[in-house]
């Protein structure tokens, strides 16, 4: 479910980056305050564990396809929210770099979707309350399964929002949601069962390993509702700020998507939460005619900020194709040239 | 019994990261032979063993186990014939109790419950570990873990036994027990190890690998006494042949 660079607009990409970096900063600060020296190597090694565990496949009964764990909830349960979030962010960074899973710009989105929700929202508000004092295997299983499902649903929904706000995909909101949520419900169920299984296994084999984290965690070393709210207010302010800044300076990405959304009238609620600056744009862009390709080429409405925007229209396209081929050939020649030169 | 033959013909293997770990390896091990594979760190011993049941597939050349030519199709069948025990027993005992672990292979072969129980008890008795049956693997000592790992492989009654560094971390007594156990195993066996004294005790034949090629192949009594050959390969005379 990794979000991908190619589907992103700069505004959405930068906003999510800002949010995720802020969360990294905040978590690091919190961790530093009450860190146990053991935590740093433990986080790193646990991160590597999740990474390795994600590569072990298992066959899902009935369907025969294969699944693997996501790891966010597992980490939160073992390490507590702050350390787990940092570990998750690191895992996603490594995946973005070594596997190009998603990409570097989408990394902000991915950290948000797969890190923030499980660690800061689902763990304190859903997992902990269900688990209670952490001694009943049944409660642990239920808590783990429910949490993983909810975290994944939130993540999947965010992917939908991020993609639509970026405006690179034509999928209408409803279709997209209907496409994403059920798939992730199934994935979440399987992943939740696997996660619950691992926790129960560890609880039976080496209960002392989990004790410190599962039971009676003092609230200030764990996470309290107040802390969660504070984090989210901070993150909302940061992202809201970033979003409106981008909205005022770089309207293209947002304009597009909001226009699309309002044109089809489906994402009304989703935009309500965003800063009022957006609403203004929304109203303004609502007057634009239905976007069609030719109209964009003919009407200068979109070109007012970037006068040199290379629109494709009949006539110029031929030169575009000719120019494009020449440029590509030129680039390839340079590449081969350097390679030949280096061989000598 | 041609089906206990292991034959490598010009096997080369390159890891996807470019390391050329095996180069044109050829040898033939016939039924009942016990062969030691020795060489420096990184010579390619473990890589070689991984070819024996198709965990790695040769980049070029061919591997025959008995009448079967190793391909993606035949490797499941080959895995029933060749049992491999790797170096670290911790990596091999993944079930929650010793019993379940040893039963894992026979169950997957589709045996029924009584047959499985018989196999498990037979295999555990073989390594002197029947009383460990109900223990979880992480409560065993190093030596006990090695023994169970071997039992788990023996329980599927392989025709050919391959082991990678079987005695590392064992105390001398456990090592001696292992040597005696290996001596009683009747079928072909192939042992990769730095412990030349163990090789000398257990094997009749010895293959020396250097940078992925076979540099010597002959009777243990010749190879393990050839000081020059050994030293060229980062090895030494077996300790029991060294004078004090």
């Amino acid at each position, binding site marked *: 479910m*990794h*979000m*991908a*660079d*190619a589907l992103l607009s*700069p505004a959405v990409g930068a906003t999510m980056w800002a949010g995720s*970096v802020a969360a*990294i900063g905040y978590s690091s600060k919190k961790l530093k305050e009450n860190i146990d*020296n*053991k935590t*740093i190597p*433990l*986080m790193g*090694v646990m*991160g*590597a564990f999740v*990474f390795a*565990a994600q590569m*072990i*496949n*298992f066959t899902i009964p009935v369907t025969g396809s294969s699944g693997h764990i996501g790891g966010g909830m597992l980490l939160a349960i073992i390490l507590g929210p702050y350390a787990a979030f940092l570990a998750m962010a*690191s*895992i996603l*960074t*490594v995946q973005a770099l*070594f*596997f*190009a899973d998603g*990409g*570097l*710009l989408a990394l902000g989105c991915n950290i948000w979707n797969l890190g923030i929700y499980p660690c800061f929202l689902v763990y304190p508000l859903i997992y902990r309350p269900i688990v209670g004092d952490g001694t009943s295997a049944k409660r642990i299983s239920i808590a783990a399964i429910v949490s993983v499902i909810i975290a994944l649903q939130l993540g999947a929904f965010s992917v939908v929002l991020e993609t639509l706000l970026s405006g690179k995909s*034509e*999928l209408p909101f409803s279709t997209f949601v209907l496409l994403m949520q059920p798939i992730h419900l199934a994935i979440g169920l*399987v992943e939740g069962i*696997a996660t619950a299984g*691992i926790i129960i*296994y*560890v609880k039976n*084999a080496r209960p002392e390993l989990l004790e410190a984290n599962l039971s009676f965690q003092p609230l200030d070393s764990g996470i309290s509702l107040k802390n969660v709210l504070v984090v989210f207010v901070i993150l909302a302010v940061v992202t809201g700020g970033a979003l409106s800044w981008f909205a005022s300076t770089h309207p*293209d990405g947002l304009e597009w998507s909001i226009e699309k959304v309002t044109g089809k009238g489906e994402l009304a609620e989703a935009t309500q939460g965003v800063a009022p600056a957006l609403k203004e744009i929304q109203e303004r862009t609502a007057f634009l005619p239905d976007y*069609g390709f030719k109209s964009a080429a003919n009407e200068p409405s979109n070109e007012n900020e970037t006068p040199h925007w290379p629109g*494709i229209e009949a*006539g110029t396209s031929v*030169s575009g194709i*000719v*120019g*494009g081929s*020449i*440029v*590509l050939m030129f680039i390839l020649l340079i590449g081969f040239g350097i390679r030949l030169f*280096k061989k000598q | 019994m041609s089906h206990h033959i292991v034959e490598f013909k010009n096997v080369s293997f390159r890891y*996807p*990261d470019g390391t050329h770990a095996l180069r044109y390896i050829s040898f033939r091990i016939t039924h009942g032979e016990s062969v030691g594979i020795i060489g420096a760190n990184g010579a390619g011993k473990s890589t070689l063993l991984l070819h024996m*049941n198709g*965990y790695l597939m040769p980049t070029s050349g061919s591997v025959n186990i008995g009448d079967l030519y190793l391909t993606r199709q035949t490797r499941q069948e080959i895995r029933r014939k060749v049992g491999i025990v790797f170096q670290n027993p*911790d*990596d*091999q005992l*993944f079930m929650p109790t010793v019993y379940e672990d040893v039963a894992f292979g026979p169950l997957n072969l589709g045996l029924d419950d009584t047959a499985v129980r018989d196999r498990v008890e037979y295999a555990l008795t073989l390594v002197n570990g029947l009383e460990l049956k109900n223990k979880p693997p992480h409560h065993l000592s190093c030596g006990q873990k090695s023994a169970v790992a071997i039992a*788990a492989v023996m329980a599927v009654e392989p025709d050919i036994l391959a082991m990678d560094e079987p005695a590392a971390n064992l105390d001398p007594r456990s090592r001696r027990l292992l040597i005696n156990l290996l001596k009683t195993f009747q079928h072909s066996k192939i042992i990769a190890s730095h412990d030349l004294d163990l090789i000398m005790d257990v094997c009749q034949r010895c293959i020396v690998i250097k940078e992925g090629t076979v540099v010597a192949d002959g009777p243990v009594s010749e190879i393990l006494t050839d000081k020059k050959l050994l030293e060229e390969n980062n090895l030494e005379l077996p300790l029991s042949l060294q004078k004090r």
Partner: protein
Amino acid sequence: MTFDEQYYNIGFIDQLSYKDTFVHRLDPRAKLIATLLFLFTVISFSKYEINALLPFFLYPVLLMSIGEIPLMFILRKVILVSPFALFIGVFNPLLDSTHVVIFSGLTISAGWLSFFSILLKFVLTVSTALLLIATTSFPGVCHGLRQLGLPSIFVSQLLFLYRYIFVLMEETMRIVRARNMRSYGKSGKGIKIFVRITGTLFIRTIERAERVYFAMLSRGFQGDMPSLKRFHIRTEDIIFTLSMIIFLYVFRFYPATEIIGRFVQGVLS
């Protein structure tokens, strides 16, 4: 991809990143910033843009050829990478069927244009991200991030993660191997066994973390990761970053392909 292949893939990129070429020697910060600017510029183009994206291939091609990175490797990875973007993008031709006249006689739907645009962006972004790590060692990237102001706790454990990925993946690979060898293509791959394997691995990982911590303590660790001053900005780095900015600016705001095309057409006719 099987487990082994994924592992070797990381190993291979990692190996590449320890080469010694002009690109590898550049300061990681310069490369990080250049890459981020590049990516932002690429995705800032509108969704129907195709031509204007082409000149941007210059950057990955230069990195690849100067950094001596095998083309086939990058191509294969680009193709194998998670297909999410393409999966979503492929709906565009179906949904956006407004017709566009390329030139008289050739008409395609706008959805195809936007799909191709996603495709191009996909190739550009994925390959530059891979090339960043193939030309900069991961520790280099981390030290760069540290010097760019990311919190030291985050960076330290990122380094631990990198270090232990290789150790743990080898360990996992051996366990998976042991499982496969005694599964004979049968039920050994069910979720129950998965849970046990992962649980075992998990316990061992925590024990390992303990040992690592002991090893750190025995060398005087008291809570702060010490750091060496490693990188100094050199003239090459400044020149590299500046040329990158100019390159991005020019090709972002001037329709270079169009101009070249017109020019050539003019010469020909």
